[in-house]
């Protein structure tokens, strides 16, 4: 247990363990494929599992030597901190958006999800005028793009209970 606490980059190590398991599962599921179809999957899955083991071993050794990790976020990394509740609400709104598109119809589902995400994104108090402006802007963007997609680009948009 003490060793686990000392592991260098615990989050990266846990994800690497996940990749090792995934690699083993994929190598196993590639056995039923034809020789040509399985060459790349077996090679890549094995490489992923081996590299995962190398990363775990490296992190354990560095942890035992007492080397403390810096931030695990990459240079392409996002913002550390902030509200995790808002992050979860945003993802849930996106899931609901995609799920409701064929049920409610493209425009109605998009309106509901758009304004739900707008509420999740607001961090400061707004006047009634500012809110009205945001709603008008949102409706204009949604309406404009819906018309562009359905009437100009002739993309068949999902139609459900409404439109």
């Amino acid at each position: 247990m003490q060793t686990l606490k000392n592991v260098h980059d615990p989050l990266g190590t846990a994800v690497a363990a996940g990749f090792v398991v995934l690699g083993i599962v994929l190598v196993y599921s590639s056995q039923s494929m034809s020789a040509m179809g399985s060459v790349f999957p077996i090679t890549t899955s094995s490489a992923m599992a081996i590299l995962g083991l190398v990363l775990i071993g490296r992190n354990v050794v560095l942890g035992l030597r007492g080397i403390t990790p810096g931030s695990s976020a990459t240079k392409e990394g996002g913002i550390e901190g902030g509200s995790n509740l808002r992050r979860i609400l945003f993802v849930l709104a996106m899931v609901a958006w995609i799920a409701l598109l064929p049920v409610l119809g493209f425009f109605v589902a998009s309106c509901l999800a758009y304004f739900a995400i707008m509420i999740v994104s607001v961090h400061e108090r707004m006047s009634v005028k500012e809110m009205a402006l945001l709603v008008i802007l949102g409706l204009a963007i949604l309406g404009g793009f819906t018309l562009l997609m359905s009437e100009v680009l002739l993309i068949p948009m999902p139609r459900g209970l409404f439109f």
Partner: protein
Amino acid sequence: MDKFIYFLEALSFANLGLAFAGVLAGIVIGALPGLSATMAVAVLVPFTFTMNPASGLIVLGAIYTGAIYGGSYSAILVNAPGTPSAIATTFDGFPMAKRGDGALAVSIATLASVIGGLIGALMLMFLAPPLATVALAFGPPEYFWLAIFGLTLISALSVGNLIKGLIGACFGLILSMIGVAVIGADVRFTFGSQTLIGGIDIVAGLIGLYCIPVLIDLVATKDPHLKVASDSSGFRLGESFAILMRNKVNAIRSSVIGTVVGILPGAGGSVASLVSYSESRRSSKNPENYGKGEPGGIIATEAANNATVGGGFIPTLVLGIPGTPPDAVILGALLVQGIKIGPQLFTSQGSIVYTFIFGLLIGTLLMLPIGLVVGRYAYKSIVAIPKAALVPTIAFLTVIGSFAIHNNLHDSAVMLGLGVIGWGLNRAGFAPSPIVLGLVLGQIAEQGFVQAYLIGNAQGNILGQFFGRPISLAIAAFAILTLFYPLAASAIGARRAKKSAVDQTVESRDANA
């Protein structure tokens, strides 16, 4: 003299107006993630059937070149490449925009795109027949090595985190294998899901992996999306031009790479821009700045991807083999217009072909003023729109963009799923770019490898297929050089630093003595 007449024909008021409208429409469609250059060209092809052949082709060429360039806007301003060929633009464009240099990044992308487009079109005009033979010299082993060359960019993108970068690339390669295999037709890694049989669409993956993590973090804090530079008014054209002049070799080299890769059927702008970015970083004096907002990275990517437009037309017009998907659509339009493709095209129907090439050149030049104006307002809009409107608008674009690829909500679901996975992996230090590289290049690498293996096996010389062909060997050598260059450069730098420290110690001892 004939060419001058064709040039004047292309300069007619109607053709100029069509080129202007085509470039503008292409830029707008290309800037929207999910709406690709292929879609822009395909949707507008029927409108060109009523025009004369040269005017119709000018419109299609202008839309195509505008769409490839337009992909850079969303890559720079919202970290979502509008087209796959703008993947590498996000590496440096978005960091520049985040630190307040968005207008500068857009201007640099515009200038580089114009340079790349012009060089590609000029090579199409003067070198088309000899260059078309390059397409025939490329077989499966060369495609395999070219994809491997693109993958070596991982070593550059993952400095200090190479193992995680390689794991990410393996994950991306596995994502590219999901669905029915191109060779052998095995159904792979679908786990019984009907949704995954068609595989993971590259564009849906791109939008998810690059755009959704940005949105997830954007809603979490009060901070603005982009910083605003104190001198954000204006195009910063002088500064952009000075940077371009310092990177002139980079711009020309990337344009040539873009044209040559564009000639290869199936490779396309994404491979061209990744190879150019890799070469640009390798030959730079400051390779460590790449990925942190280095203008040279934007110049390499944008020059290369716009050069593929001219390059792609070379095998299309000379051999009848489309270099890229939009070329295939344009090839269809040419056939409908009654134009016979082949090496004789340049002599038998020179008036149409040369008017078209001059139209392409004019469209590329028009991209400069149109692009700067549209880019400036796009940047100002992104900066000015409050976060409460920006986040749902970008989210809306990700949903419709992924849906529009195949008119299928499964792509939207895959996009969101990959985005959430990408955000989680990024938190643990696994950057999205190696995953994207694996996803984009996986199919090209696998197809090239398996075909070369089968040919080699039939000839009883498998190793000869991979290591016995001069072009293969040259690409493999560049791949190895690029892979180990960051390690070698840091080792040489460390040795130099050590040597200079020793010299300083000796000098100080001598002075003390």
